[in-house]
């Protein structure tokens, strides 16, 4: 399993030009917003959580369908599926590797991006925190979606139809939690706990669903 983790991490680091690309991608996405919205610092800092979360979602989506598609095309998936390891564990590890490469660097870089978006110290803390808790959920849901899609001829369609609607609640809880942390009137604990629950829930259910899908849709 460690072998799989390190292979998957190495593969995505390798072929995407290193983890640099992920961060660069966020930086690029973030710097696009002021061009659209205008260089209004107050407004930008209000929108900062949404901007960061959208960046995270987009980064996760960009690579998702390749989570299995490549393994399938080159025949690796067959061999992965045949082994003694519980398949759900294999799926969990693949999702984890995906998150470690796309999700974690963003969380770590949030302070820098937060300063650029004029986010307060507390806002940075809240954003980094919710991203840390929430982005794994995107990876887990995405894994299930990608698994559903992998064997089907018209899979791409299903991936987006399945994943995006499931992921939108995660986005919304994350952003509400940040707002709760920054404003007196909005609740903070409730959405954060929801977010934790969603992540824990999907960390089990996502890989499991993916495993079941892969077993049953063999061809």
């Amino acid at each position, binding site marked *: 399993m460690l072998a799989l983790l390190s292979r998957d991490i190495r593969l995505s680091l390798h072929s995407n*030009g*290193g983890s*640099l690309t992920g961060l*660069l991608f966020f*930086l690029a996405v973030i*710097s696009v917003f002021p061009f659209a919205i205008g*260089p209004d610092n107050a407004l*930008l800092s209000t929108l900062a959580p949404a901007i960061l979360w959208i960046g995270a979602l987009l980064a996760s989506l960009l690579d998702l369908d390749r989570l299995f598609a490549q393994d399938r095309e080159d025949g690796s998936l067959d061999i992965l599926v045949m082994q003694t390891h519980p398949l759900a564990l294999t799926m969990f590890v693949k999702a984890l590797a995906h998150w470690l490469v796309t999700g974690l660097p963003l969380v770590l870089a949030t302070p820098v991006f937060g*300063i650029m978006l*004029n986010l307060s110290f507390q806002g940075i803390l809240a954003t980094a925190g919710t991203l840390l808790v929430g982005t794994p959920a995107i990876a887990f849901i995405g894994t299930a979606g990608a698994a559903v899609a992998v064997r089907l001829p018209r899979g791409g369609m299903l991936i987006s139809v399945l994943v995006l609607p499931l992921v939108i609640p995660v986005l919304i809880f994350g952003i509400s939690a940040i707002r709760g942390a920054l404003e007196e009137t909005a609740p903070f604990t409730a959405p954060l706990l929801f977010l934790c629950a969603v992540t824990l829930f999907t960390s089990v259910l996502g890989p499991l669903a993916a495993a079941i899908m892969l077993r049953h849709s063999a061809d």
Partner: protein
Amino acid sequence: MTTMTADTQKISGVWSLANPGRFMGFANRAVPVMGTVAILLLLLGLYLSFNAPEDYQQGYTVLIMFIHVPAAWLAMMTYTIMAISAIGTIVWRHPMADVSLRSAAPLGAVFTFLALATGSLWGKPMWGTWWEWDARMTSVLILLIIYLGLIALSKAFEEPAEAAQPVAIMTLTGFVIIPVIKFSVDWWNTLHQPASVSRFDRPAMSAEFLYPLLVMAAAYMAIFFTLHIMTMRNEVLARRIRSIKRQAARRNSSKATLLHEDEA
């Protein structure tokens, strides 16, 4: 004509001989000289800078200017050098042009980062914020993204020979940002309410600021060229090692020769 001859014969085989060899000789002689010049200029520049009068508006923080402005200039100059190298790669396919481009990129990124960081440090006492999405800062940030993107792109290819053309074309395309950095302040104003941008449009500087600044700029340039030649030297060596390794790895496959040709 139905020929498919490549434009030049030296896509990459010949390069390891004549040209880089001469370059290596030149580099070995030039680096110590240029390094010395760079250090001397830097010392002079720093001395002049610290003896410059305090600005009535900005106080001691004006010192940052002597670090900041040359860094910003160098960031743009380095990109210009890369763009010229890119033309060399595209038009003549000269491998040394590619070496020059790729060795300059990290240096340019560092200068750009320096300009951003010092500008940001300066911004805190001046404007009260670390970061402002105004024309110049944003366009320099985009320059940094372009630099890093180019570095990531060239790293993504396994084989330097394969990366040359894509990286060169992207470099040329990205050159648009240089005039944008230089002139965009007005364009931006058409878009957004002018906030703190006006600070950039200061009248011409007085001499007591100008001289140290120019010396510092010269020092930066000397540093850049020294480092550039050094990194180019490293790149040439790295490629040699790489090709030796490859050849060793292929000891019994590789070269294909015509064995026989018979009429049936």
